[in-house]
Every structure is written in C-alpha cells, then in structure tokens.
C-alpha cells in the first residue's frame, strides 16, 4: 500500500470537516486553560488549506504537504500555526523527491514532523501539548508494519484523553499551573481529529 496525492487531499478535507464541526468545542477547551481561540485558529487555517489544495494540481505528496504547511504558517495566527506548519513542512521535506510513499517512508515523515514540533515548541512528552498525541502516534506507527486504521484511531483518542490528567508545562496553559489539570489540551484534541481523519482515509483504502 502507498500514500498518494489524492489520499493526502482527502486527509486534509476530512481533517477540515472535523475541525469545522468541532470549532466551538476546541475554542471552549482553549477558553478553560488558554485564550479561547484554538477553534477559530484551526478552522481558519484548515479552511484555507482545503481551498488552496483543491485549486492546485500536484504531482507529488511532498508538494501538497508543502502548501499545507505554508498555508497553516500564514493563516492560523496562534501557537498552533508555527507548530502544525513546522510539522507538515518537515513531512514535506522528508518526502521530497519521492514518487512512491510506502509505509516506512510515511512513518519516517511523521517522526520528522514530531521532531519539528518538539524543536519549535521546545516541548517534550508529558507537558500537556500536542506532543502528547504525536509522540504515542509515532511509537505506534513504528510498531505496526503497515497502514492500520484502527490502531491510529485508538492511539490518538486514548492519548488525547490522557492529557486531561496532565499539568501544563508549555504554552499558555502553563501559566495556570495546577489549575490546568482536569482539562483536555486543545491542541491534542485537534491533533486527534487530524489522526482520526487519517485513520478514515486508510480505512477507505490507501
């Protein structure tokens, strides 16, 4: 199985649908431990992403991901802009010049994305940020030997829910210290939507 341009486009469309549907929920989560704009930021960014990639012809997965990245960098506004923008940029760079994206190249790309997020946010696991979803996902992808819809969905969901118990050490929520415990991390929830969308793409057949 391999990942193609149309798969990535569907992946972004499905991510966008989930983000638009849950826009208010994401902002409400951010209102509890941040400034309340995460839903607005992500909805604006992904809406622009879908508009951009639909009107463009692509010959490689790397090129699509590059446009996803550039659009998120310039349109999102909050911390999630440079973070997701860097993630997709690293994916794009790691797949540059590749015609066929097999499973191992894909895993490598997501792993590079995780490294990019950690570098940009100076964050590591257990700090109540989207790293707490991306890191377990990369570990799970490395365990699997092919695209698995179910493990991606389950891992993303469980790790997103686990952020509730964590005390924030990075991002705006860190200013709240202990008061951040008991709330889901908004960035981890949006990351869950992105991986849930990926899981659906795989289910439909990569």
């Amino acid at each position, binding site marked *: 199985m391999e990942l193609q341009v149309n798969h990535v486009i569907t992946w972004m469309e499905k991510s966008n649908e989930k983000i638009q549907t849950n826009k208010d929920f994401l902002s409400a989560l951010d209102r509890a431990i941040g400034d309340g704009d995460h839903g607005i930021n992500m909805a604006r960014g992904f809406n622009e992403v879908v508009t951009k990639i639909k009107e463009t012809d692509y010959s490689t997965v790397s090129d699509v991901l590059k446009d996803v990245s550039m659009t998120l*960098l*310039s*349109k999102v*506004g*909050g*911390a999630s*802009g*440079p973070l997701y923008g860097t993630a997709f940029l690293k994916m794009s760079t790691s797949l540059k010049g590749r015609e066929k994206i097999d499973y191992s190249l894909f895993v490598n790309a997501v792993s590079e994305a995780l490294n990019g997020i950690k570098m*940009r946010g100076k964050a590591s696991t257990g700090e109540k940020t989207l790293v707490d979803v991306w890191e377990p996902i990369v570990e799970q992808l490395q365990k699997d030997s092919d695209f698995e819809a179910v493990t991606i969905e389950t891992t993303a969901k469980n790790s997103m829910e686990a952020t509730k118990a964590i005390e924030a050490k990075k*991002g705006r929520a860190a200013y709240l210290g202990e008061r951040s415990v008991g709330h889901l991390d908004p960035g981890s929830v949006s990351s869950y939507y992105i991986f849930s969308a990926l899981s659906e793409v795989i289910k439909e057949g990569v």
Partner: protein
Amino acid sequence: MSHVGIVLISHSSKVVEGIKDIINQMVPNVVVEPAGGTEDHGIGTSVEKILQAIENAYSEKGVLLFYDIGSAMMNAELAIELSEHENIEIANAPILEGAFVASVESGMGKTLEEVKQAAEKAVK
C-alpha cells in the same frame, strides 16, 4: 553609519506601535519596525509580518528581534529560518525595556552582539 535594526513582535499591533513611539522619541536614528497582530488585524503573530519587518529594518549591521509571549517566539525563530539574511538574532529580554536599551545602544553604532547583550541585561 548603519545601525542594528530593531523588530518588535507582539500579539497586539497596539503594543508594538506604542513601544515604537516611546523609543523613537529618544532614538530617532534607529529603524524600529513593528510586527504586531495577525494578517487580518486580530490578536496573534504572523510570520509574514515578521519577515516584512526584518526586510524593512535590515542593515548590514543586522537585526535584533524582540517578542512578547509564546507563539511570538516560535514565529520569530521561524522567520529567521525563512529569511535570506544571516545576521538576525532574537533577544531574550522584556520587549519594552529590552528594545529601548537596544535602540539606545544601536544608535551609538554598537554591533549586533553588543546590542543584544545590553538588551538582555536591561532588567534582571
């Protein structure tokens, strides 16, 4: 004589406009470029605005960036990675006091390193 340019990055355009006014009153010969708020005038930061501000503030002596909170620093680092210029640095200093001290030093013709060090000592 060229001077180290100063770029102010904040979530709010009002914050950086105000800081620029305070600095320019005392140091009129240094370019202080604001990069505040998002493209659509909201609260946030924009890597494109920062890149443009770096272009406007650029001199051969380099540019020093100041930021306010969280994502402003991420976008500042990103702008440095995306910029074609080499001599750009980020000061880890309070944006108002740091940029003020930096501008005074820059106005005296100091180097990027000297200006940055002075800014980082601005408030302990």
